[in-house]
């Protein structure tokens, strides 16, 4: 089992004929993900890699192929439109990989999704990889391994770094989830840790945060009250200067809040060890797991 995906996940890729969409669709298919359709307006009737039918709209993909999940690779100006379309067509899980989506667009999208009971992951995220089940996004499959650890992160390559170390130590994963580096995102740390807490196969999990906002602090408070599973954390950006956006739109210390130091204090106060270096995450997890 994994969080947010299972054997019934049937994927439609929006932007499947684009450069990135095509490349990553091939990778997802190679991993065994059930991509039942692609969508690119104007390309309806074509086939992707001679097997996946391409439609003009998500509605057609849902009606013809029963797609229930969308993975979005469309450019920033069209990303919000693609999310509305997938939600309206009936997809219950939407993973938006696109980086650079205007924040006001995301603010408008949110109530539309809430009304329809749709889960969004991202935008500006690597997506989700449930080893042995499905890959929705761009996480590299070569580094994952099936096992009992959950991982949730605001970052991409830093996530890969940690997954790599987990797998090398023999600790496989139930689900590796990148929630994205933007200020307004669909699935939050809180949503992910609640799901990991409920997932019977996830025995322990890792939370990789970074500067900006207070999502890590909120998650820490919830974990302290509700979670019995071992959790370790890491926070990137201790050396980030205030007021500067560190790559991710959401990674900024503003008005003196959202610092790595504050997050570390909140996490430790909730009994969650915070690794000093990325390489300390695995030993840290092994240590508290034993107890």
């Amino acid at each position, binding site marked *: 089992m994994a969080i947010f995906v299972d054997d019934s996940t049937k994927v439609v890729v929006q932007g499947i004929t684009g450069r990135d969409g095509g490349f990553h669709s091939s990778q997802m298919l190679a991993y065994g993900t059930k991509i039942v359709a692609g969508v690119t307006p104007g390309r309806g009737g074509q086939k992707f890699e001679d097997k996946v039918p391409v439609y003009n709209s998500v509605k057609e993909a849902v009606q013809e192929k029963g797609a229930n999940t969308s993975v979005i690779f469309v450019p920033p100006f069209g990303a919000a439109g693609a999310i509305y379309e997938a939600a309206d067509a009936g997809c219950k899980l939407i993973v938006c990989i696109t980086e650079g989506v205007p924040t*006001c667009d*995301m603010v408008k999208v949110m109530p539309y999704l809430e009304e329809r009971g749709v889960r969004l992951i991202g935008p500006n995220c690597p997506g989700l990889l449930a080893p042995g089940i499905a890959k929705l996004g761009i996480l590299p499959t070569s580094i994952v391994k099936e096992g009992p650890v959950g991982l949730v992160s605001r970052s991409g*390559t830093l996530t890969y*770094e940690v997954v790599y170390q987990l797998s090398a130590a023999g600790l496989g994963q139930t689900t590796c989830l990148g929630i994205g580096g933007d*200020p*307004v995102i669909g699935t939050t740390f809180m949503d992910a840790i609640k799901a990991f807490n409920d997932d019977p196969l996830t025995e322990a999990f890792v939370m990789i945060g970074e500067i900006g906002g207070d999502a890590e602090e909120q998650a820490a408070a919830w974990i302290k009250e509700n979670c019995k599973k071992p959790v370790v954390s890491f926070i990137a950006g201790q050396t980030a200067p205030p007021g500067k956006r560190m790559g*991710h739109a959401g990674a900024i210390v503003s008005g003196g809040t959202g610092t790595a130091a504050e997050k570390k204090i909140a996490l430790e106060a909730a009994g969650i060890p915070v690794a000093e270096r990325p390489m300390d995450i695995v030993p840290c997890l092994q240590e508290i797991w034993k107890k």
Partner: protein
Amino acid sequence: MNIHEYQAKEIFTGFGLPVPGGKVATTTEDSVALANEFGYPVMVKCQVLTGGRGKAGGIKFCETEADVRKNAEAILGMDIKGHTVKTVLITPAVDIESEYYVGMLIDRNTKRILLMASAEGGVEIEQVAKDTPELIFKQPIDPRFGLLDHEAMDMGMRLCPTDIKKARQLASAMQKLYQAFVHSDASLAEINPFIFTPEGRGHAIDAKVNLDDNAIFRHSDYEPMRDLDAEDPSERAAREANLSFVKLSGNVGCLVNGAGLAMATMDLVKYYGGQPANFLDIGGSSNPEKVVNALKIILADEEVKVILFNIFGGITRCDDVAKGIIAATEIMDIKVPIVVRLTGTNEEEGRALLSKTDLVPATTMDEAVKKAIELG
């Protein structure tokens, strides 16, 4: 993108917010001419992209032409927190009876635009939030309906419980500010303070707006507002080369793929007692041109004594990345040592390519960081 007060006021005026007139000048003579045009008293306000302008002596009340001459002379060229004043805003001074704070920002928790208002105007709102958070009223705005009349009136009445006329002016200003916020794709919009004159007229006498960088593509009219002088030259070069870069003051130049890993790399340099020279996310590309651009920007800083590449090749193959780095370093004449850490897909092939060069290979992040500090 941060913009100046006068530019924020131009946006506000366009949405009907009451802003006292004003014009900018870059010389003392022009400042005097503008002041004479408006009539006295006037305010001379430095236009720099930082807070605390008043405390630094960059905002002056002037009753006479001589005052304006003296103050404009002093303020133009003044250094305020590392920003040199090149422009002043000359604006008619208004009598202030009361001051309020009205601001909007993107609230990550409610995932909405959040209206914040307080009767504690004219002071640093961060301080109010820290000391007396109960004096700041908040209203999340539903994007489907915008700031509704009753919501705005409720906020207006909280700020001015005994004066319905003022409450209405505040409510109207809040609704106009919301329009300005969403139509300009702001990430922050503040009026601090919104004031009332003794006659009961409301004015937005200061304005602060940050625009969402992700939305600049649909506001080509705002691009000229960018103050190129206020940007560090290296950060400007990086922006023009589409690289995510922040200049710091250390000696270890960092090139990393991915923002999270780039931050973690900087942190690790510091952990081992070194000082990172920058944040730089080179992205997933192995394109030598991108690497060359990044190296040029980092090496323009003479403090940089060593270069550290930290690449986790997930989708990107390490041998491709190695080829890109080798090609880039062959084009350029680089005098400082270069440490390259490559992990992920095809890492052995990548490292085999590096072993034929002067580049210093490393397997783990820790090893790479330690080597870089040693060589730097």
